[in-house]
């Protein structure tokens, strides 16, 4: 995916994205817990700086925005509680309950240091050529 993105960018063009990832340095058991609790698109890979480098990007920077992630998720749970009746009618009682349970589990994983969200930036190389190795 990163390699495809690099190919379509002009030389020196920025790539900036948010990603939810499993925290670094966790045990195998905690990694499994993080994946279970995280969204379906949680990343459990080797980390974006190395992935970006392998895809040919340069100047990779990572900013942790996990605190904001926790606030947003907490706000989401609260807002859905406030509209519980309408959401149960729109979805179903069971689907509403399952969704809220998943969100609480995800929030707990953030608070326990298992999940993080990052703002990642990098640039296509000035002589942007399609990399021959990597992703």
């Amino acid at each position, binding site marked *: *995916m*990163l390699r*495809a*993105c690099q*190919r*379509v*960018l*002009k*030389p020196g*063009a*920025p*790539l*900036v*994205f*948010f*990603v*939810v990832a499993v925290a670094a340095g966790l045990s195998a058991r905690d990694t499994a817990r993080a994946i279970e609790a995280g*969204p*379906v*698109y*949680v*990343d459990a890979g080797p980390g*974006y700086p190395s*992935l970006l480098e392998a895809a040919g990007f340069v100047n990779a920077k990572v900013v942790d*925005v996990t605190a*904001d*992630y926790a606030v*947003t*998720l907490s*706000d*989401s749970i609260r*807002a*859905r509680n406030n*509209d519980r009746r*309408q*959401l149960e009618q*729109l*979805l179903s009682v069971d689907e509403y309950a399952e969704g809220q349970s998943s969100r609480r589990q995800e929030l707990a994983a953030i608070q326990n240091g298992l999940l993080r*969200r990052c*703002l990642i*930036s990098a640039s296509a190389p000035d002589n*942007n050529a*399609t990399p021959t190795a990597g992703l």
Partner: protein
Amino acid sequence: MPDQSGDLVDEFDAYYRIIDEPVMRRIERSVLGSDYGASSYTTREQADRLAGLLGLAPGKLLLDFGSGAGWPGIHLARSSGCDVVLTDLPLEGLRRADRRRKVEGVHGGVVAASAALLPLQDRVFDSATSSDVLC
């Protein structure tokens, strides 16, 4: 879009079919400050932070991969004056994104494609972004 499996695409499509419901709009506005049918945790404040890092301006072309229903890609294009191409797999989200793009008067288009393949020309984009997509 985090995964190319049919189940996940169906799951996201089901979500995009209800995003225009008033209760869903209300929740999104209160939590994220947007009303596009967002499927990420990106708040309006974070989207505006993206705009600065991406160097968006009139005449520039932005790629938003895994765009869902168009948040934050369309917002970024509208607020900066740049053009945007949105790519994703769930068609329901892309249809909504394209309608919203036209309503907002934003130039560009949508492409139904996996971000791993991106059937787009080499070196045409001035910047690229995504929110909570598994790269």
